[in-house]
């Protein structure tokens, strides 16, 4: 188990380094001058040059890359070009929104999707099953920014139950902070819940016809009991895989949802930073996101291998 974990960890580190190099290179070739952007069209060339000097934009590429990587090890992610503040601080602030949002969305998607999948599998072939699967199909098909808007139109504009967006800091009012994340989490969670429902149903349906279920029933358990005691656990394996991948999808989805609900999250930060050519901010934020996703995949693989020892001996994945 230890060797498995170590090999996986090395793979993670390698991926991260490659990610850093590619991110840096990709951004460096991005045309556009942050200094000119900050100072606008009426700025004199010498003002622009002075700002470029201040921001250290003209140092050679390799030097900037290594100072960036080196800085990251000690937690120094550099100073944002456009905001003049430590990138680490800026990102940390945004994480306080994006992480709870993603976590709530994951809980919601599992909490809604899995029971629906189980229910549909147990009532396989019935009207309820078809109805639930139709809902699941719709859930996957609706563009999430549109769904978000519709949620706002209903719950904020018409019913006035929840805020249409924005964020109250946790420190100021935790209830209001939570309330601001409810609609965005739902918008984020819906397609994932739909996918989980379908995967769960398929996996369970598979399992129902399998040998060990028949054995369990022969031993005297009812179908329900058999499914619950043995089936679900076995069906969880493919579900776990999906859950691991979901984190990446959710993280990608936050860009859209944070825009629709004007939340001060990491996705919006990256998006705005790209527009402003604040490359330091973009670089470090992207690496942190990559780290989060790879980390989750790593943990999922560990959990997987722990649950199913057969997987530990397989060479790579």
């Amino acid at each position, binding site marked *: 188990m230890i060797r498995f974990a170590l090999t996986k960890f090395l793979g993670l580190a390698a991926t991260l380094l490659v990610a850093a190099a590619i991110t840096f290179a990709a951004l460096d070739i991005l045309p556009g001058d942050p200094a000119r952007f*900050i100072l606008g069209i009426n700025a004199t060339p010498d003002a622009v040059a002075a700002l470029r000097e201040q921001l250290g934009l003209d140092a050679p590429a390799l030097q900037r890359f290594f100072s960036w990587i080196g800085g990251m090890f000690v937690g120094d992610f550099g100073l944002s070009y456009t905001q003049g503040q430590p990138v680490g601080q800026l990102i940390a602030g945004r994480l306080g929104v994006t992480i709870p949002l993603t976590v709530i969305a994951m809980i919601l998607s599992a909490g809604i999707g899995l029971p629906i999948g189980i229910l549909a599998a147990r009532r396989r072939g019935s009207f309820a099953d078809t109805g639930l699967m139709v809902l699941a199909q719709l859930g996957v098909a609706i563009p999430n920014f549109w769904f978000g808007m519709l949620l706002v139109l209903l719950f904020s504009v018409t019913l006035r139950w*929840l805020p249409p967006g924005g964020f109250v800091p946790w420190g100021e009012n935790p209830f209001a902070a939570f309330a601001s994340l409810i609609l965005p989490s739902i918008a984020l969670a819906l397609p994932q819940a739909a996918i989980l429902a379908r995967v769960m149903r398929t996996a369970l349906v598979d399992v129902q016809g399998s040998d060990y279920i028949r054995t369990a029933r022969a031993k005297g358990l009812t179908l329900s009991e058999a499914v619950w005691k043995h089936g679900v656990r076995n069906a969880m394996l493919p579900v776990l895989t999906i859950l691991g991948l979901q984190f990446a999808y959710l993280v990608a989805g936050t860009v859209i949802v944070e825009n629709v609900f004007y939340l001060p999250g990491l996705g919006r930060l990256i998006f705005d930073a790209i527009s402003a050519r604040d490359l330091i901010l973009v670089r470090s934020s992207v690496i942190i996101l990559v780290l989060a996703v790879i980390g989750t995949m790593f943990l999922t693989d560990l959990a997987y291998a722990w649950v199913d020892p057969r997987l530990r001996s397989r060479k790579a994945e």
Partner: protein
Amino acid sequence: MALRTAVAAFALALSFVGIADAAPRTDLRIGLVLEPPALDPTAGAAAAIDEVVYQNVFEGLTRIDETGAVQPALASSWDVSADGLSYTFHLVEGATFHDGTTFDADDVVFTYGRITAADSVNAQKALYAGIDSVTAVNTSTVELKLKGPDGLFLFNVGRGDAVIVAPESAANNANTPIGTGPFKFVNWQKGADLTLEQYAGYWGTKPALTKVTYVFINDAAARVNALLAGSIDGINNTDASTLPVFKADPRFKVVVGSTEGETLLVQNNAKAPFSDLKVRQAIAHSLDRAEIIAGASSGYGTPIGSHFPPHSKDYVDLTGTYPYDLDAARKLLAEAGYPDGFSATLKLPPVPYATVGGQIVASQLAKVGIKLTQVNLDWNQWLTDVFTNKDYDLTIISHVEPFDIGIYADPNYYFGYNDPDFQAIMKQLNETTDEAARKELLIAAQKRLAEQAVNGYLFELAQTGVWSAKLEGMWQNAPVEGVVLSGIRWTE
């Protein structure tokens, strides 16, 4: 039973989310489209910076009022020497910065020294390049000497780029702005909102509002929803396309005014075929301003015929110089050697009046055989390709600087327009301070630009604001960038 208690508790918790207070309020939540990247107006060009801090947190020696006129601010009065080269400002007494330090002449000297320094990162440095010296005569008097007379000097002194900052705090103004204004900076939740509170030690008239929060909402539909849900009280300038929803709703009032933004179809005068006057005239004949305004700005905005705002006292209506006439356009194109028209690219910045306006212009010019390929850029690309490298054929942009007709006198400006006649008019204008003489020269300048069809003059951008019907005192027009809070109050 437990369920009911839980629901009640949850509902109670949700009620903490609500903000509104029944009695006449003194707090305000304003929506802004863009978040300022930093808060120092003397070190950045973003309009959002001024919208938050100009005349609210920071003040200059003079200030621009709602009509665009110069008013006293930190300078209660001033004397101008006969030759127009020396300005003596008498400063107000008892003004303090938000950190408690007193305001005096040394702060003025520091501020202007900073603007004109060799390593200054002021976005409008060129406007203050004519300052020869700044001296503190005594603690409440400052003398500024100019290298040459400047008719716009007092106006420029009142801009956001020249607000007075203190040496003790200037370095941190980007994140914690310290000024002398009626509101002090309290908190900035990056990406979300920014809060100001009334400054108890303000030297002038206290504003009616005690707390103002700017909420940054990037998405147009989200802004509409935020207003409708009551989560913000107003937006100074939002998409014109969303106004019909609010016009029909008695809870809101729509405030439409003018800005200093001339929206132009910019032509690269240095590049064929736009270097040919006949081609430019043909394009002018092909533009249907009414349709562009209707489609790109939902009908808000005033047509212009030259690079000058219609609300100005020196404006002359030149929209009839090249009336809409497709036959005349085709004839001119044929004379210029393009009987079948030509192809060109139209590079557009990411603003609705450009992206939508571009589609309309392309559709209109197609009727005379000019086939345009639209290329949508982000601001950075626009600044690089179009503005800095001048690598473009056509673009659409709104120039929002007040009194910027002088840009046409610079042959290196991205317009590529090099006209000795116009340059002569500008030179004379810069040296003239007499109002009547200035008016004549400005009229001549407008006429020259219109006749030369330097750019396609489309319309003056309107400021389309939506506010709660219970608010008053907001500026209808935007003679300068900013959202001035001091006059705003709740009526009930």
